[in-house]
């Protein structure tokens, strides 16, 4: 069985982001970029599944301009077997990504498609669900535990939901999106970095895949959230009531 993992190159989680002065987006020049943390977790899970014998190959996929290849190299250094780079413009919305992934899945025919639950730059949380819909595959999102059963060809997924944990049993092939507590990603060791240099990265374009990328969304405006105002220490209950009534208008 093959496993396909989709990863995204985003601004590093630890960087303090700044909004561009023209309010069209976030400052990305000269800012450290790395693999989306949830995608790292997804790749780690795929590698663990391969190491326990349930899969033969892990393919890592990324979409974007040439720099996305760096993220793919990280993926290969972690242990993936090969990579596919879809050369596409930098801003790709979830539906376009889902359409491209569908075509890639039809070509590669993996038994499992694992993604991070969301990207930390847009926080969309849509790609996994959309691609499952397009493929008509079962989906286990926000996975905090994944157990595979080879004979029955099912995956038992514990999902983190608002009310607690939900356990689903999915028939393979399936789509899984990973949540934070699933695992702790491994470091890229030097021997693996060495091996990664010889692993293939195939480049394709959306045109070759017959996918039309049309942006159905437009970013109008990006602003920082309003700064938290300092608290005010009041001296009496009367003052509190007065403020609640006249300033906050809540009573």
């Amino acid at each position, binding site marked *: 069985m093959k496993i396909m993992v989709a990863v995204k190159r985003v601004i590093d*989680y630890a960087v303090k982001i700044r909004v561009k002065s023209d309010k069209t987006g976030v400052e990305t020049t000269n800012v450290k970029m790395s693999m989306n943390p949830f995608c790292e977790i997804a790749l780690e899970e795929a590698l663990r599944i391969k190491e326990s014998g349930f899969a033969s190959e892990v393919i890592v996929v990324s979409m974007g301009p040439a720099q996305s290849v760096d993220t793919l190299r990280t993926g290969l250094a972690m242990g993936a077997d090969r990579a596919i780079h879809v050369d596409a413009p930098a801003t790709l919305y979830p539906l376009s990504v889902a359409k491209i992934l569908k075509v890639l899945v039809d070509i590669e025919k993996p038994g499992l498609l694992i993604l991070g639950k969301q990207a930390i730059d847009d926080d969309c949380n849509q790609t996994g669900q959309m691609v499952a819909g397009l493929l008509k595959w079962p989906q286990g999102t926000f996975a905090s535990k994944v157990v595979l059963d080879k004979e029955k060809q099912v995956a038992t997924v514990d999902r983190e939901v608002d009310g607690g944990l939900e356990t689903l049993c999915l028939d393979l092939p399936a789509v899984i999106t990973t949540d934070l507590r699933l695992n702790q990603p491994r*470091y890229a060791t030097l021997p693996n*970095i060495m091996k990664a240099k010889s692993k293939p990265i195939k480049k394709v374009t959306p045109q070759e895949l017959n996918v039309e990328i049309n942006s159905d969304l437009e970013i109008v405006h990006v602003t920082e959230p309003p700064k938290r105002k300092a608290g005010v220490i009041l001296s009496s209950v009367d003052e509190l009531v007065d403020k609640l009534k006249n300033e906050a208008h809540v009573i």
Partner: protein
Amino acid sequence: MEKLFRSSQRLLNQSSSSIFPHRSNPNFEHLKHISGSSYVYGDICNAYIKPYFECETRNLQAYHPLKDYVGMFRAKTCRIQYKHFGSTATTVQRDPSFSILSSDDIDYFVEILGEKNVFQDEDKLSTANMDWMRKYKGSSKLLLQPRCTEEVSQILKYCNSRRLAVVPQGGNTGLVGGSVPVFDEVIVNIGCMNNIISFDKVSGILVCEAGCILENLDSFLINQGFLMPLDLGAKGSCQIGGNVSTNAGGLRFVRYGSLHGNVLGIEAVLADGSVIDMLGTLRKDNTGYDLKHLFIGSEGSLGIVTKVSILTPLKLSSINLAFLACNDYLSCQKLLLEARRKLGEILSAFEFLDHESMGMVLTHLEGIRNPLPSSMYNFYVLIETTGSDESYDKEKLEAFLLRSMEGGLISDGVVAQDINQASSFWRIREGITEALMKAGAVYKYDLSLPVEKMYNLVEEMRLRLGLSAKVLGYGHLGDANLHLNVSTLQYDDSILAQIEPFVYEWTSKHRGSISAEHGLGLMKANEIYYTKSPETVRLMVSIKKLLDPNGILNPYKVLPHSPLP
């Protein structure tokens, strides 16, 4: 009488090493705080002198028939002390020429600083009286927090006139007892003077007050695209005034160099209250003697630093970090040479730690993950590169690492893929000090030694101490600076006797420095002769006398208590 004369003659004919079989008094640390004049030696002392030293000095006067001989005897023992650099029999005694704090003094301080900035309550004083290592505790009764240079000047002028001893204090993170009072000195804490005065975005020159915390300055600068040229584990608490006063080194020393090079100007207040404004922001200024260098590294003994102007380097976007394992110390040295050659201008940090240090961190700190769990290696090396082009630097680093691995210099390693991974690697190296504090008592030594010989000291120390203590060696390999730490469950004088003065003598023999970056403080003031010649120290003493005639600034520290004439 005849008998006593002959016995004292016999005594004086003995070599000092047989009278004092252990060159350093193992009770030295405890004796510091005994203000009486009796010495307690215990078992190590030769039976000959025990009776003389176990009595109060005034009782010796009772032997008046022998006064001359006793006088001779005492004069001769003083000479014995000088010959061995005061490592024996020198208790620190409170200098009686300093005045005792009176209520008039407190009233005056309240008048000039306001009541809110004068502290006498127990809690505030107990934290200010004790150092970070919890090794030194003073008994000051007064803590002052001036808010501007003028107030510092008034405080010092008054203290100088009243002969009140003063301890300048910043973040109180020093490791040699230099930031806390020894007796009842007045603590002047600069922490409230924490304004950033100006920052030039083009040249990167930052002017700020001495009480600014290093990490806050770093965060401010990062927003502007710059960073502080020094980085230490204590950055969350240490203040720039203290960093400058101790000429702090840190993790990035190998790339950005010493504070002597980065500090462009200082404003300091001398002991008599005069404000010396050398707060220039010029890169080049060859007009007269460059006095700011006197204040950098003098640990508050020549003046209190109130403002600093510092040149900050640009924050380059591409930072890569590799955590590597080596089998032996020779590979670490070769790796350093190779890194200098192959990584050259992008190398920004080169640290090493041995397997004991790694074990200590993994045991005592939470949330630490071993990046190379497959086995415990003998040495770990952290190499950081900082450059302007991400992919170019990464390629350069990876090529260097792969070649070193093929050459057998590295057994295994990982490269951080994002900032979080990099922070977790740094946490391991920066957390060793914290882990040691949690493990119990620690004897800390910070030595500059030739790189080839550095680890030999650690191994010899291990042989000496055997199972009684854990010996850790780690440090800034790129600067030839070893942090030697001995960890025991409790402070134990017999273990101290095994360590000192062996470690100082070993360092001196290899022409190293007994304090690479921590400074002398109280801990090593008397050991200065291991690294500096008597003539040099004599000149230092005269400079101290010139700038601080009453000796009120940070007394008992930095310079030896009984300098060689």
